[in-house]
């Protein structure tokens, strides 16, 4: 019995970080935007980690799932705002649509691209992201390159005051919630058969197959999970918060790169890693922008290079190894 509870100990530091962030943001004036950004980076790190960290496959088109999720929220609000009895539930439908759309896209992409390995997979996924963006723009789907601007409709659906609170406060809270859910799913996978299967296929895919592991099935499970969480984050942090969506902004490959950096900094395949990675990345990006605006990337690139060469396992990867078997080790995963 105590084993069953001990299994969830590693969630304690994760949730403590999120709680601390929330309390700081809520109580220190002027901090909320920074806190929201940190939560966003930790959340996308966690969502991406379920695929990148656990399978070892790099998906450069990852941001497409966030983009599609953003569209899910935009479409829900811009199409259903006049259905009066829906009220605030239009936001819930937005989240559902975001999850469904990103799941469908991940199944389509996964069924084809996950048959490829290594660099081939990575390249194929870049194509998906760019292709999807140009499909929306070229075929003029969902407003084409003019995008969807839906603050007015949101206000009409839920009232001006609620709309303002939704986009300035609740959108960020939802990111916290999604991050918390992502952490729980990550741990659930890590401790379950699926985690063992994913570790095996990450380390040696052919040996894993011969051991009886249906590698494609497990890769697709991780891929869909990761993609649907990304869709939800997009729906909240880019949809509900920004209340407009333009293809070049949400299919921007830059965000995928940030996800990869966050996961690698913190420790790929670990639970706490992407949270810590998100904090380190978000904070240093913020401070570098303040101290030397315009040069932050120039400074940041070599720092990341050094960290990744010196600690390929990431911050938490190193800590988890050092404290394995000690009482503290129970909390680090």
């Amino acid at each position: 019995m105590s084993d069953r509870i001990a299994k969830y100990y590693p969630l304690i530091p994760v949730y403590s970080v999120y709680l601390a962030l929330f309390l700081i943001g809520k109580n220190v004036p002027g901090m909320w935007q920074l806190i929201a950004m940190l939560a966003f980076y930790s959340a996308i790190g966690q969502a991406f980690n379920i695929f990148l960290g656990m399978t070892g496959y790099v998906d450069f088109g990852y941001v497409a799932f966030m983009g599609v999720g953003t569209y899910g929220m935009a479409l829900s609000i811009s199409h259903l705002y006049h259905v009066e009895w829906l009220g605030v539930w239009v936001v819930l439908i937005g989240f559902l649509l975001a999850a469904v759309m990103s799941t469908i896209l991940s199944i389509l992409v996964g069924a084809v691209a996950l048959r490829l390995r290594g660099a081939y997979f990575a390249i194929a996924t870049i194509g998906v992201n760019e292709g999807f963006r140009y499909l929306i723009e070229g075929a003029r789907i969902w407003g084409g390159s003019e995008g969807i601007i839906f603050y007015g409709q949101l206000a009409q659906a839920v009232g001006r005051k609620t709309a303002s609170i939704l986009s300035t406060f609740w959108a960020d809270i939802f990111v916290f919630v999604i991050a918390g859910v992502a952490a729980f799913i990550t741990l659930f996978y890590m401790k379950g058969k699926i985690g063992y299967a994913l570790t095996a296929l990450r380390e040696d895919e052919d040996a894993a197959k011969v051991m009886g592991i249906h590698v494609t099935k497990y890769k697709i499970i991780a891929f869909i999970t990761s993609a649907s969480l990304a869709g939800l984050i997009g729906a909240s942090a880019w949809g509900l918060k920004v209340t407009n969506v333009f293809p070049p902004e949400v299919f921007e490959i830059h965000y995928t790169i940030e996800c990869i950096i966050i996961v690698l900094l913190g420790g790929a395949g670990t639970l706490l890693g992407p949270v810590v990675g998100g904090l380190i990345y978000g904070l240093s990006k913020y401070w570098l922008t303040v101290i030397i605006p315009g040069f932050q990337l120039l400074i940041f690139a070599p720092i990341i290079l050094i960290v990744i060469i010196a600690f390929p396992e990431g911050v938490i990867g190193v800590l988890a190894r050092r404290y394995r078997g000690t009482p503290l080790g129970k909390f680090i995963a």
Partner: protein
Amino acid sequence: MAINEVYLEIDAGERIGIVGPNGSGKTTLFNLISGVFFPEQGSIYFEGKDITRMPPYKRAPMGIGRTFQIPRPFGSATVRENVAVGAMFGTLGSQVGVREALEIADRYVELVGLQEHRNKPAGGLTPIEKKLTEVARSLAMHPKLLLMDEAMAGMHPKDIDNMVDFLKRIAEQESISIVAMVEHIMRAVVGLVQRVVVLHQGSKLVDAPTRDALKDPRVVEVYLGHPPEEHAC
């Protein structure tokens, strides 16, 4: 190296040695049985079922286990976790949860004598320990047929004897058929297997009980080339 018209029947609980020089098709044979490749012609039956084109992940739960010549443990996972993977996805697969799999793993880790290393990542082990991890992992699958690729290469003769005794005992207890691929360690062949199949350039050259096979002049020729007197050098 391709193999050509090799007919091979393995009885339940039988231990066979596959012998042959480099490039004789031993690894190809293993890859065909475990499903890494599919044959262009011919068929493979396991317990009366045609598995010729069955993907490998379905063969393992039926009872076909395998170890690799160069051990391939899952490096970042601990020894115990590696062995648990075998229990989780082998023949017991659907009935075994993570907790039971780890218990099974502990048993096999102890059987191969790695209990001190059980919480170490397998990637940091010595080659021999990696090999033992792999043996434990494949045994934890509770296979009916175990394909062992050079399981004892690089081992000390005394360790080979121990390994042979261990494999014989466990194969008899759990009625596992073993097909051991052996390149040069005759000590292992003689001790472990009841029958020897000699492959040469992809074809079956000899298939006979161990003692007879090792005395067969064709086997001597395959291994040593022509008798020494013809090579006056």
